[in-house]
């Protein structure tokens, strides 16, 4: 009955059933979701190492008090660019890459709904990051006022400023197009029988993430546009001398910024919800509650931005509102953690590399969640604000949170994508080095912050030396361990033991019914979902 759904995309692409174009031009002109997924993932991996190198510069300078390696201005460029590169260059494109590879295969679609726009949304990214990173080589250097771009400090950026703003505009356009594509694919291209409540959880979390993206990326674009006109066109949105207010920027920015942190973690929730049932050999506990919990988190993310601004001066009622609303997020998040643990409960568990990363995600993300609850307490936040405690908190949710989930996803689906098994022994070594490294790196930062060490400074008081040294050792251990990951991925792409179609004994879902590696075009005939 569904055989004729196949030519759905022919009006976009007349050589749809042909293979890829020969040579390197393939990657430039491709409209194939698998090719574009690969491009996104490789781009993200590159940016992960670029941003990681910046992090190592920061940690090397902080190994000892005093200034040893870089000057403060360059240090500030490193903190600013590390954040921008990791958020917009590494984490977000990695999830878009996973979405491209997996969404059509998971819902039984032949491709993404808008393949040409898909190509465009990827190819904007290298240009955006060329603009952003080129500022490092300009007179005056790159942006150094922090990734949050608070005025008036950010307005003191030199010639790099318009480059940064336009790079952010381009990243935003790319993300919005990607999000539109994801929504159109999920809502319009599901195979017959694939009802919304039968979709794999990764698809669900991406659908919600995509709505968050189209709701807040335009707000970020608006706020940086206002910065641009304030600097060059004489407007006074944030200039008190002209009747504006710099605090307003913080409101607009964090209206984007808080949903943004869920944009980076909801797909991670989806990935972990695919992996844990596979290796626990049990269906996911509480599927429907997972969907509702994800939606609740997405909704709440719009009304809690004030918790980033407790110390700017807010009336008591505002502090209380943002405090309680923020704490409310712990409820749906707790539901999710409970469900993951319950899925593992009495399961026939095995501990292959993806499962190790997924379990580490559950434990370490929860630690990051708890320090987040501490930060949500408005009176306590006056102590924690702008200290290393905040740095420790958001790195716990982003590195062993989002980044570990991406690595788990790569180990989990790489055999499907390449047709080869990765080196399990090497994968486990990579996992253990990473999990030890990441905790040695970030756990001492909690103590540094509670003791009063401010963030974003290249020098510090002597009593902070030991914990900073430990943190730096962890940083280099974690950073260099990622070379094992790179090696393992490259070796798996080049060859290795043949993977079966199902790959993992407990894996369920449409993507595991396809051959490994899947042919260039899959589900040109929609499968039927019972």
């Amino acid at each position, binding site marked *: *009955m*569904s*055989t*004729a*759904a196949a*030519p*759905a995309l*022919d*009006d976009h692409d007349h050589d749809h059933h042909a293979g890829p174009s020969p040579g390197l031009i393939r990657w430039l002109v491709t409209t194939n979701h698998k090719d574009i997924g690969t491009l996104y993932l490789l781009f993200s991996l590159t940016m992960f190492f670029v941003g990681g190198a910046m992090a190592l510069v920061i940690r090397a300078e902080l190994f000892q008090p005093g200034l040893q390696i870089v000057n403060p201005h360059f240090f500030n460029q490193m903190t600013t660019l590390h954040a921008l590169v990791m958020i917009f260059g590494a984490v977000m494109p990695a999830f878009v890459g996973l979405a491209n590879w997996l969404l059509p295969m998971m819902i039984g679609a032949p491709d993404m*709904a*808008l393949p040409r726009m898909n190509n465009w949304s990827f190819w904007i990214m290298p240009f955006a990051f060329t603009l952003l990173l080129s500022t490092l080589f300009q007179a005056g250097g790159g942006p150094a006022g922090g990734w949050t771009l608070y005025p*008036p400090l950010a307005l*003191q950026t030199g010639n790099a400023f318009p480059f940064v703003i336009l790079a952010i505009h381009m990243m935003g356009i790319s993300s*919005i197009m990607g*999000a*539109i594509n994801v*929504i*159109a694919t999920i*809502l*319009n*291209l599901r195979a*017959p029988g694939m009802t919304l409540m039968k979709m794999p959880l990764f698809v669900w979390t991406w659908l919600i993430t995509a709505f968050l993206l*189209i*709701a*807040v*990326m*335009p*707000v*970020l*674009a*608006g*706020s940086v546009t*206002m910065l641009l006109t304030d600097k060059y066109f*004489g407007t006074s*949105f944030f*200039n*008190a*001398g*002209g009747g504006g*207010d710099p*605090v*307003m920027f913080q*409101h*607009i920015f964090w*209206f984007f910024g808080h949903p943004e942190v869920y944009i980076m973690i909801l797909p991670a929730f989806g990935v972990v919800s695919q992996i844990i049932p596979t290796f626990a050999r049990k269906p996911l506990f509480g599927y429907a509650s997972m969907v509702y919990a994800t939606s609740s988190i997405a909704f709440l993310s719009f009304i809690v931005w004030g918790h980033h601004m407790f110390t700017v*001066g*807010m*009336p008591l009622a*505002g502090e209380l509102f943002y405090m309680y609303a923020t704490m409310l997020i712990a409820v749906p998040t707790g539901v999710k953690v409970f469900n993951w643990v319950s899925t593992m409960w009495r399961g026939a568990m095995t501990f292959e590399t993806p499962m190790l990363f997924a379990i580490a995600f559950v434990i370490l993300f929860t630690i990051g969640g708890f320090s987040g609850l501490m930060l949500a307490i408005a009176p306590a936040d006056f102590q924690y604000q702008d200290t290393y405690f905040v740095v420790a908190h958001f790195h716990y949710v982003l590195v062993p949170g989002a980044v570990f989930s991406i690595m788990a996803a790569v180990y989990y689906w790489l055999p499907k994508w390449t047709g080869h098994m990765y080196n399990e022994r090497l994968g486990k070594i990579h996992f253990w080095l990473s999990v030890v490294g990441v905790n040695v790196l970030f756990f001492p930062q909690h103590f540094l912050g509670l003791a009063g060490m401010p963030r974003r400074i290249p020098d510090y008081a002597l009593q902070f030396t030991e914990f900073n040294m430990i943190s730096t050792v962890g940083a280099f251990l974690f950073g260099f361990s990622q070379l094992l990951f790179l090696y393992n991925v490259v070796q798996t792409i080049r060859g290795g033991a043949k993977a079966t179609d199902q790959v993992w004994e407990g894996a369920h879902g449409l993507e595991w019914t396809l051959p490994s590696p899947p042919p260039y075009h899959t589900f040109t005939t929609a499968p039927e979902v019972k």
Partner: protein
Amino acid sequence: MEIQETTPISISVANRRLVKRLLLITVAMFGFGFAMVPIYDVLCAITGLNGKTGGRVAAVESSAVDEARTITVEFIASLNVGAPWEFTPQVNRMQVHPGQYYQTHYLARNLTGHALVGQAIPSVAPGLAAQHFQKIECFCFTRQIFQPEEGREMPVVFRIDPNLPPDVHTVTLSYTFFRVDDAGG
């Protein structure tokens, strides 16, 4: 063969309709970012949350002076980056009774050899005290023109509204001086 549920035509029509709607949301949210500017100003004007006293003369009804209550008013002066003035309050603090009028001065001197135009922006802390801090006369109401090297006293006449919340004992009035002629950007 049965009739298809989803024909190619219907999918591309559905895609186009969905993309249009999603683009509409995108544009609306871009507009919402800008709409937050007037919303913010209106909210702050109504609630006085951000300590803005407004650059205008307060409409004051006369009311009894509350001799029983003493409030400390602190005066702060700061210069925006690149504002070439010397700028200080005449006194750093005053003890005042709510309802009574007081006058003080700020001193400003142009440190350059050419004429300058400046604008002082007031801010009151705690923020909720702002609407109870009433200025009858203030150099912040207008732009201030300074001849080369000119220095002068600039008066502020104010009073604290007796309705000031009882838990407020200290009110801080801060002025930041901005250069607003063309050269100051």
